[in-house]
């Protein structure tokens, strides 16, 4: 089935949200969602890294691994590619784009190990997307991730001063809220499905 890239883009944001339907990228989602501004920067950084790594991984997979019949190596190769790409980008923007570094660069090391990044690269291979579809999928996933973390940060800021049972403070309540948000997002699932 060939899906329109726009459909994939839309679905990646709403119906197949990385966090709310796949529960990927949870560690930084829980750790950094205290403040809207930081969450937004982290979301931007995720989108940026997703966009580029999916292209590189797509090329590496189809131009190197497939011709050599080494598809099963994708897990290792994708991880290596993502890690080195993030390192490289961090060095570059640290040196040449100071303002960008302060807004986004400090979050890059956090993203290296974000499973949403690896998840997107794997999904695009498993679902057999073309390059254009992959780009649409990865950018959409990044935006969806941003949407979820910013929404979470907003909710957490609102409930910051509310009394909570001691054991639920921090990650506990965040997980519960994530669950409820995920339920709400099921409402979108009737619109379009990509998997």
């Amino acid at each position, binding site marked *: 089935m060939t899906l329109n890239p726009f459909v994939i883009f839309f679905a990646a944001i709403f119906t197949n949200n990385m966090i709310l339907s796949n529960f990927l990228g949870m560690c930084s989602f829980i750790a950094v969602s205290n403040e809207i501004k*930081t969450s937004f*920067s982290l979301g931007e950084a995720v989108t940026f890294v997703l966009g580029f790594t999916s292209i590189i991984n797509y090329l*590496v997979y189809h131009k*190197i*691994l497939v011709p*050599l*019949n*080494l598809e099963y*190596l994708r897990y*290792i*190769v994708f991880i*290596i*590619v993502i890690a*080195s790409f993030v*390192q*490289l980008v961090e*060095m*570059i923007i*640290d*040196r*040449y784009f*100071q303002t960008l570094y*302060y807004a986004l660069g*400090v979050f890059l090391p956090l993203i290296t190990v974000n499973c949403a990044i690896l998840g997107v690269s794997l999904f695009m291979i498993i679902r057999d997307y073309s390059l254009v579809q992959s780009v649409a999928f990865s950018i959409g996933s990044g935006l969806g991730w941003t949407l979820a973390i910013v929404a979470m940060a907003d909710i957490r800021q609102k409930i910051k001063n509310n009394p909570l049972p001691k054991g639920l403070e921090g990650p506990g309540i965040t997980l519960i809220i994530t669950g409820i948000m995920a339920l709400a997002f099921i409402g979108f699932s009737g619109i379009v499905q990509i998997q």
Partner: protein
Amino acid sequence: MREIIITVVTISSISGVLAFLLSIANKTIANYGEKTVTINEEKDYIVEGGETLLSALIEENIFIPSACGGKGSCGYCKVKVLEGGGQFLPTEKGYVTEYEREQGIRLSCQCKVKEDMKIEIPEELFNVEQYESRVAKLENLTDKIKLVRLEFEEGKEMEYKPGQYIQILTPIYKESFEEIYRAYSITTPPSSKNAIELFIGYAGGICTTYVHDYLKAGDHLTIVGPFGDFQYRDNDMEMILVAIGTGMAPIMSILRYMAEEGIDRKATFYFGARTREDQYMIEELRELEEKLPRFKLKMCLSRPTKQCKWTGEVGRVTDLLKKFEENGENKEAYLCGSPPMIDAVIPILKDKGYKEENILYDKFE
């Protein structure tokens, strides 16, 4: 067979190419060349650019206090950056207050040396060094507090003031996967330069667990020090010393120093413990009472049991202070112990007329 070779070659070449790219980037993009760090407007240090300020200074043998080892999670490694620190980072936000930020205070483990810098650090930090020590004695003072005696190699001496502390580099052991620094006050007087003693209480933390359950006499420990501006001040004011638990450590150093130097000052030491089993070093304190004619020890137990047969004061140190202290206008107070104790004692002393600048404290966190 062929497949295995292809796999190995592919993986190696992909990683090889990426590693090559990264090392080129490291040599070119991340290479900032040599930069000058000027400390306190007098000393210039040439350091490798691109590193964090903290590690650049460690290479020059200047040890800024840091408990987390540069991960930006303890907030101890603050320095004042006058020039060239770049922008304030989001990762520093939780540890540097608005007021400090205006003063130019930065976390040295986050701020990188990318240009020539001018910074200010307390003069005493030049004195801080790393020492390799051997555990010469390990003794139980109570069932929760151990005395640890550390001896340095021959000829190595530490210059410190009574009241200061050192940091132990806790190595990786069974229950901890990272090296961390933890601070402990020195209990010996400054004349003991080749060896120091510490009181280490069991609190379930990484370092206390290590010391209580794993450390043996004869082991080697790396320490860094001395640190701290909680120090004995040389004047004639009457002084009170207040401690609970291992808070006695720096106070012991002060009292031993006074006894050695024959300093005749009116002094009262308020020492609080839970039960009689939690009291320690009492014999030596009694001896100090004899050596120092105007020194008095006042103790209290907060939860004496029947077995204690305690006839002294019952309550916390705060109760003792309320009962015995008055007119603190010309007195000096040295407080040492847990943060709640210190936070409870300071208002009481202020009520009794102590001036803010004469209340010195060391919170054991």
